């Protein structure tokens, strides 16, 4: 008999008032018994709608059944058949709009906690499993993957499993891309990301850090060096600013810079580490996505007393995951909704001292279907702050496109690909992830890496 409880088994987490002062992981994961209890909520229904909701098609009911039976190791192998980064996905995937949204149990009560179970299995294996990944027999064909974020790691891992000699090029000094520089430690511990990357390395993938493709080697150079195909997964690394007065004052960061300092360079440990970050008593984060939540919660942890999220629409339109908004509010982040910055005010010495905003109201729906925010006349007001974090989006980094003749890109920088294969306008060159779509999710990038790996295999075999 399945467990017919309407709600998910709760996952333990750090208390808000404690966790908003440290960088340790917020959620603590299931114990064995909790996982089994939750797994028993799966009806193992015939239609299995959840699988179609997963961009990498994890065999969800099968792995959950194995968890219910206490076969955690087997459950891990089942997930790994299609997903090379389960510990990551179990934490940062928006399950509520993917697998869990389609779960039959969600029609009455909460869906099965697929994400929490995936995380449990991955964590259990990291603690108790034996690393059994070995390098498959080589087919001698060289493939280059550019960028070691979610799409690159997935593409590299999948190709390595098929016997390709894969070299993965990373511009930073550690692999992981946005998993390392973007998503904070308290949502995705970095040691865990590196462990997950170890399993990709164990498949024989050669990871070369400090290699800025487009500069030190071009895509053409890679082809000349004998790589038969190239996958570009270089991410969305170009931060957007609002072009309002005061954006170059001291104390204004792009979310990319703020988070990179904290996550990749461990600025939260300064002066034990050498990279500093400046957080004032009051901080304004402009934008309403997951990145904005990450930046706001990081600022709080670095000691800011008041952290404001400034967003021009209402709470319903916030693009961030509901769970992230909920966590942020619990931690004391103040949402300033229907508010839009007009200019950043500075001291004579050039430091931020305030942000002038205007209140908004929602008008008619726009192209995206969301109600367009319009300014309320005469509602200008100033919020006193010392730090501003611009978190209004990132677009694809132009370095590779600029040095690759024949590679077609959109006007906003996204690499143009054939949707089903990831093939670009240049023969033998594939692309996926944020470099194609603009900033999106980890799992969509992984799905794109997977498709491209299949297409590359088809091309070369």
């Amino acid at each position, binding site marked *: 008999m399945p467990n017919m409880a309407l709600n998910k088994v709760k996952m333990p987490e750090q208390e808000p008032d404690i966790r908003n002062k440290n960088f340790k992981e917020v959620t603590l994961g299931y114990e064995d018994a909790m996982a089994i209890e939750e797994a028993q909520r799966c009806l193992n229904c015939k239609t299995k709608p959840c699988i179609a909701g997963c961009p990498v098609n994890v065999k969800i009911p099968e792995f959950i059944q194995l968890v219910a039976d206490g076969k955690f190791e087997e459950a891990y192998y089942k997930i790994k058949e299609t997903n090379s980064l389960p510990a990551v996905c179990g934490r940062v995937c928006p399950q509520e709009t993917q697998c869990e949204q389609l779960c039959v149990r969600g029609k009455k009560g909460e869906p099965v906690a697929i994400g929490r179970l995936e995380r449990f299995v991955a964590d259990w294996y990291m603690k108790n499993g034996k690393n059994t990944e070995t390098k498959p027999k080589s087919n001698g064909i060289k493939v280059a993957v550019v960028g070691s974020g979610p799409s690159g790691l997935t593409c590299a891992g999948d190709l390595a499993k098929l016997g390709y000699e894969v070299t993965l090029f990373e*511009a*930073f*000094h550690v692999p992981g891309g946005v998993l390392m520089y973007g998503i904070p430690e308290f949502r995705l511990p970095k040691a865990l990301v590196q462990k997950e990357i170890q399993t990709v390395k164990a498949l024989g993938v050669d990871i070369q*850090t*400090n*290699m*800025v493709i487009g*500069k*030190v*080697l071009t895509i053409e150079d890679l082809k000349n060096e004998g790589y038969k195909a190239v996958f570009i997964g270089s991410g969305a*690394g*170009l*931060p957007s*600013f609002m*072009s309002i007065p005061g*954006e*170059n*004052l*001291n*104390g204004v*960061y*792009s979310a*990319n*810079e703020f988070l*990179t*300092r904290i996550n*990749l*360079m*461990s600025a939260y*440990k*300064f*002066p*034990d*580490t*050498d*990279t*500093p970050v*400046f957080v004032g008593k009051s901080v304004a984060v402009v934008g309403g996505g997951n990145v904005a939540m990450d930046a706001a919660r990081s600022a709080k942890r670095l000691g800011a007393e008041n952290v404001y999220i400034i967003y021009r629409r209402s709470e319903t339109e916030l693009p961030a995951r509901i769970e992230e908004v909920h966590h942020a509010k619990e931690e004391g982040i103040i949402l300033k909704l229907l508010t839009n910055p007009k200019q950043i005010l500075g001291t004579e*010495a*050039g430091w931020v001292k305030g942000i002038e905003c205007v209140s908004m109201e929602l008008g008619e729906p726009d192209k995206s279907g969301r109600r367009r925010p319009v300014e309320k006349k005469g509602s200008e007001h100033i919020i006193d702050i010392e730090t501003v974090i611009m978190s209004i989006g990132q677009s694809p*980094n*132009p*370095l590779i496109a600029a040095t690759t003749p024949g590679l077609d890109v959109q006007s906003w920088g996204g690499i143009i690909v054939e949707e089903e294969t990831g093939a670009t306008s240049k023969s033998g060159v594939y692309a996926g992830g944020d470099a194609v779509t603009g900033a999106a999710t980890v799992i969509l990038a992984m799905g794109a890496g997977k498709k491209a790996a299949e297409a590359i295999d088809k091309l070369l075999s």
Partner: protein
Amino acid sequence: MFKIVKKEVLNPTVVLMDIEAPHIARKAEPGQFIILRISETGERIPLTVADYDRDKGTVTIIYQLVGKTTNALAEMNEGDYLLDFVGPLGTASHLEGYKKVAVIGGGLGTAIAYPQAKKLHALGAEVHVINGFRNKDLIILEKEMEKASDKLIVATDDGSNGNKGFVTNVLKQLIDEGNKYDLVIAIGPLVMMRAVSNLTKEYGIKTLVSMNPVMIDGTGMCGGCRLTVGGKTKFACVDGPDFDAHEVDFDEAMRRQGMYKKQEKESVDIHVCKLGGVTNA
């Protein structure tokens, strides 16, 4: 890991190192830079490529001991390895098509101006180099610059090398003597570059400066290195580091350079303490 194959102390606060980095040596051009890191807890610092040897596969960096990382780097020796060394970053200088160029280096800026002078000279331009230092003990690359130029004038603030003056005075004199430059390149402290820029603006001579702001990735990702150039925001790491001097907002650049002064001092103080320094004595 990147091996230090040569170390040379150029003056008490300036050190030259050749680093084994064949991939970068193959591609580097004057005007470009590298980013290095020396320890797991270290920061990423940008340094301009001072020279490169494509055959030997080495890249030369010249740096001044200003912060924790440069001080720690200066304690390393030939045979030691840098943890990370990435490049070549930034856009190479466009040096083709000039007939007569004044290349100005102030202090450490001389090291950055050197590859530019060398390349211009090789391209057949008449190159006048003006180098300024605080005093004669700080003079670097005099021989190298002599080889890379048709005329070399070294001035010191205190006159200790027998030629007292600022680079701006020297440049003004050369222009007034009738030298018709179609380009001036000025590399050094922001105040010096601003002073040169103000001067050449009066004379209407095109001027390039090399900007070296705070940055992390060097690939356009963080935006920490942004500057206002011609009223628009530019990223020094990808749009530069060379910019039209007459368009650069130097005052803003100076303010932004001071962003982490307090933290930088804290970092250096701790480093000195660990070395048994006397800061708290």
